[in-house]
């Protein structure tokens, strides 16, 4: 793995990053792509559900909930400084 690249599931609430790659089966990545999960898009971790999972991410002005089992396969480069 390249340096500076983290799995989305490891990012903390408040973290902002740029999507690097999505490593999921075709039909899943297709759906995610249409929600904005494509390389180069800015994503922010906004909430974690009370049980710690799923997590809500803001991408393209939309909030999307993903389980960590899915977010684990999405990689992003965290913006410098990590949390805002």
């Amino acid at each position, binding site marked *: 793995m390249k340096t500076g690249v983290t799995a989305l599931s490891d990012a903390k609430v408040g973290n902002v990053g740029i999507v690097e790659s999505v490593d999921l089966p075709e039909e899943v990545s297709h759906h*995610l792509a*249409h929600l904005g999960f494509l390389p180069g898009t800015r994503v922010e971790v906004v909430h974690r559900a009370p049980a710690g999972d799923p997590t809500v991410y803001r991408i393209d002005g939309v909030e*999307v909930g993903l389980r960590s089992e899915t977010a684990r396969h999405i990689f992003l480069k965290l913006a410098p400084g990590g949390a805002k």
Partner: protein
Amino acid sequence: MSCHAPVLEPLEPVPPPSGARSRLKTVALIGPPNSGKSTLFNRLTGMRQKVANYPGVTVEHHSGRMKSIGRSDLTLIDLPGIYSLATYSEDARVAVDVLTGKMPGVPRPDCVLLVLDATHMNRQLMLAAPVFSIGLPTLVLLNMSDQMDDRGGKLDTLALARELGHPVALISAAKGTGLDVVPDFLLRADKALEKSPRPVQLPVLQTPSECRKWATQVTVRSAYQSPSASLWTSRLDAVLLHRWIAPVVFLAVVFAVFQVVFTIGQPLSDGLGRVLTHAGAKAALLLPDNWMRLLLRDGLWNGVQSVLVFLPQILLLFLFIGILEDSGYLARAALIADRVMRSIGLNGKAFIPLLSAYACAVPAIMATRTIENKRERLATILIAPFMTCSARLPIYTLIIAAFIPNRLFLGGVIGLRALVMIGLYALGFLAALLTAKLLNSSVMKASPAPFILELPQYRWPTVQGLAMRLYDRGMLFVKKAGTIILGVSLVIWILSVLPLHFASGTAQFSDMANSVIGHLGRFIEPVIRPLGFNWKIGIGLLSSIFAREVIVGTLGTLYGADPATHSVGLQAALRHDMTLGGAIALVVFFAFAMQCTSTLAVVRRETNSWKFPVLQFCYMTFVAYFAALITNQVITRLF
């Protein structure tokens, strides 16, 4: 610049359609999920398709005449939301098949209204390129423009129309603004159809990332400034998804619903009952004092009114469901409950169909079309009827009001009756969970499909929207009382007075005990006796195979026609005729049993075989019987 005026290619004014028939016949509404297509459909047709604030409300295509804009000659087709023309789920396939003219029985659309949510254009525009490539005249409607303005978003619609090569207009389907552009476009589309067909542009944008790149370019060139995230949504979510507060709010909402159904619903229901009884008694005096009065008052009116009195509770329940759905909280509830769903091996996507099964299993089973994975979809279909639908409310409320004392706890915040009701709802939910677990460990070892849930912005539910829901629901309930329940009551009453006896030259009715229904009842009684049910309850169970509410109508007729209980009312009659064990066993039976022909029919249709509905019916009846048996035996021993 932000521009409110609808922007169209400058053309000379088009004359309204003359006597000649227009070529344009069918118009399709297409757009991403939760972009407001159905709201717009209702605006343009004057119809009332279900709308709510979460993605995936529409799973079928619906058609209507565009009456509200004076074009009754045109058919508008509302389609399920799609992200692209490559589809993985059943509902999206419906949309694409209709759009490309491959759906049998649905004419190929002549033009398209593409509805996009103006508050996040980058993403929404990704659908535009594939839709344009179909080659139909298309009007791009940027919905929720009022929200975009409110949150500081901007868009140059003129530039966007130039970029897209199709007319563009800002609208708000919810408020009904900007819609005058639609009839105008339709006239133009009609003109365009008279000319030679447009050259079809082949799809050049194949992959999502190409679509995305194109969409980004277009939004940049049309000076799109995305609106800031809704402040209220962020603030509310900070509380409603908070680690400690969220579960408390979630439970409080659930308790509040049931408490209100009792504390407000019960007095209303009792009042309505008094009015209906009084009206029935008054009306009966106008009838000749013979068999006709008995038939109408004891048979039909008792049957129908004993169900009708539950109208206030049903409306209150749907008011709550409406507020939860329209505000956007439902999607948050799905997020909070995902952990539980996962522990039983169910897709998070199953949660919304299961939640809507609290209203009725039929739309819930249809809503499973949004689940891509076939086996998970089947599992969800099979467990949905365990969720407590509103048709169970009448029998639950009747038994609880008759047998459970009105005791309050925690300084009057929670009542025993509401707790019992919640217990019954929980029982159904548990049965659904255990069945899912069973299915997962035996027949459906499915690879878990991912949980991807868009959280919509919070919105204020509109009074008009809620009023319409309640009106539709109320009418449905009243209609059921006036058809199925009336019919069953009639049959039950006739069977309860036959055969006729001829004594001293006049025909006389049988006693109920010696009537056809009495004999039938006593014939089945040995089977249900261990459950604590008498033969009248048995007849009620048989009749409720049509629909769950029917049992209340049947009991109303049977106890109403019986001289011994004729004048005391159904609640009191049941209190004297049943033990506590039998009464609780009855509601437990209803928590599990599959007493609904509509659900069986929809399962048959959605699974395309009789195997599953038959299996489901047998399984649920089996579970219901034994659960009721155990309940009765345990309670009878304890109390």
